[in-house]
């Protein structure tokens, strides 16, 4: 069975789709082109198709193979009728099976567009008034041929030109986190023509991400961000390579991942990852571009440990614990804030790769989008770090204490004797009360102030929405000498 065929017999969609059955396929998309009863305002009574079959056969198979490769679909078939057809009959049938519907739809669309555009097929239209005429099908292509991705508007910049463009095409950039910052960074870098972009994110798309993460659509909810972003960007700029890595950056893999690129961009939403990126970049001698946002503000820093510049640890020797200050989930964020900071990150990456002037170095940029203020604060390299960074010995330092967290259904934890403390703020508790009974409600700030009132003979389990604040609180309480405090892993969100 050829992937592309001509036939003089009527097409039978049921048999054609049955032949594409595949247990690995979660999606099947088909397109049927049918004979219409009118064209250009004239009533059509029937059609006749003719093709240059020797040429069209090989070209048709190439079209199918290209679409499969480009969209990652499993199998596809296209059959085109020749000879005389009546109104309502199927002239061309395309079917695609793929793991998911998105690949099936897009591959199917590409095949029919290319068939109509590239194949030497002609049709003769017979009109009701007795007239008739030949139409070359390339004239009725639904979509014009995809033009090449055109970099002319940046090639004309005197600092870039073809040499600069080539440098970008030969570069690899690692983007850690494909959220609000990540979407802006990825779009900017993909548009500029960075040759290879590695997208590291183990998260899946959540409906609450969409307002500030325009690489995803509601259809992507539940899909892995790395894969969804890569698919979207591959369609946007077919001239670059996208490499999705749906893994979490950990102390075990951070160095391996960071060395894959010329630059690493931190777009994560937590301190543990930010310090991990910083540390791995410093140890691997790679530049890192870091940013964070908080409500209407952001911070930007370019770590050039590869060029004796300062790093995150020059200002913050100890990794900051997550949960002490809010993230986007807890504190809220407006879409343009990560978009602005992410665009600044993409700009710094391009400045670095193209050796443009004005690079942020040994500085922290503070941006306030409410008052439109920005400050460049000088942040020099720590004194003790002469030739080598003296503060980072390995990337393990950022790893959280494992035995701090407990993953148990709350009722079972209570049955095991843990005193449950709900540390969420009163508004959160009112909105989704903890249906447990026997627990205490002590908002985080009050708990930290009242640490001395914890009974050292009891075991306490702290609970919050996602287990981030409770872990930070437990760490802080332990650091203050309360060894009998644990955190509920994943928080109430993971209790089901």
């Amino acid at each position, binding site marked *: 069975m050829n992937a592309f065929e001509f036939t003089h017999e009527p097409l039978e969609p049921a048999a054609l789709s049955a032949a594409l059955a595949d247990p690995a396929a979660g999606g099947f998309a088909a397109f049927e082109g049918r004979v219409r009863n009118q064209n250009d305002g004239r009533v059509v009574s029937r059609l006749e198709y003719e093709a240059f079959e020797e040429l069209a056969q090989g070209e048709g198979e190439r079209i199918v193979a290209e679409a499969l490769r480009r969209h990652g679909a499993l199998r596809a078939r296209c059959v085109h009728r020749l000879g005389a057809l009546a109104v309502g009959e199927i002239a061309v049938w395309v079917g695609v099976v793929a793991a998911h519907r998105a690949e099936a739809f897009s591959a199917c669309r590409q095949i029919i567009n290319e068939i109509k555009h590239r194949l030497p097929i002609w049709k003769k239209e017979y009109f009701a008034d007795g007239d008739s005429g030949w139409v070359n099908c390339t004239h009725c292509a639904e979509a014009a041929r995809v033009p090449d991705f055109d970099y002319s508007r940046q090639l004309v910049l005197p600092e870039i030109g073809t040499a600069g463009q080539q440098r970008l095409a030969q570069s690899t950039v690692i983007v850690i*986190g494909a*959220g*609000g*910052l*990540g979407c802006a960074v990825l779009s900017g870098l993909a548009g500029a023509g960075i040759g290879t972009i590695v997208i590291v994110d183990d998260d899946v798309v959540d409906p609450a991400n969409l307002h500030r993460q325009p690489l995803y659509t509601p259809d992507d909810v539940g899909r892995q961000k790395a894969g969804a972003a890569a698919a979207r960007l591959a369609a946007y700029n077919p001239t670059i390579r996208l490499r999705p890595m749906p893994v979490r950056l950990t102390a075990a893999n951070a160095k391996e991942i960071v060395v894959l690129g010329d630059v690493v961009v*931190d*777009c*994560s*939403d*937590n*301190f543990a990852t*930010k310090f991990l990126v910083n540390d791995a970049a410093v140890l691997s001698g790679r530049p890192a571009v870091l*940013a*964070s*946002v*908080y*409500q209407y*503000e*952001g*911070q930007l820093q370019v770590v050039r440990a590869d060029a004796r510049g300062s790093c995150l640890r020059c*200002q*913050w020797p*100890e990794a*900051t614990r*997550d949960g*002490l*200050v*809010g*993230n*986007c989930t807890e*504190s809220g*964020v407006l879409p343009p804030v*990560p978009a602005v900071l992410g665009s600044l990150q993409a700009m710094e990456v391009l400045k670095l790769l193209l050796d443009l002037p004005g690079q942020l170095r040994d500085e*922290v940029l*503070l941006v*306030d989008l*409410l*008052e439109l203020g920005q*400050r*460049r*604060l*000088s*942040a*020099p390299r720590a004194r003790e770090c002469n030739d080598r960074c003296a503060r980072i010995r390995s990337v393990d330092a950022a790893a959280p204490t494992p035995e701090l967290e407990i993953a148990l259904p709350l009722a079972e934890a209570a049955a095991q004797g843990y005193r449950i403390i709900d540390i969420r703020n009163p508004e959160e508790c009112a909105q989704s009360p903890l249906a447990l009974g026997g627990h205490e409600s002590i908002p985080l*700030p009050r708990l*930290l102030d009242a640490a001395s009132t914890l009974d050292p003979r009891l075991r306490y389990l702290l609970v919050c929405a996602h287990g981030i604040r409770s872990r930070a609180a437990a760490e802080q309480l332990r650091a203050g000498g309360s060894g009998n405090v644990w955190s509920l892993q994943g928080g109430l969100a993971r209790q089901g």
Partner: protein
Amino acid sequence: MARVHLRYYALLREQAGRQAETVETAAQTPEALYAELATRHGFRLAQSQLKVAVNASFTDWTCALADGDEVVFIPPVAGG
């Protein structure tokens, strides 16, 4: 007494309820100044979790403050 200009970011801006202010203080160092302001505004972040910049440069907590200095306390932010 020194007159210093202060700017607040992120969590500190929320807790102080303002973006900027000018204060008269007897504090000689950023450390003493933060302790004074923490009491006044109810700042919950410990000094160890913050950085301080004086006149647009990160500095240590024990440098001497002068009349007219601009002091920025910078909380860490992690949102992405």
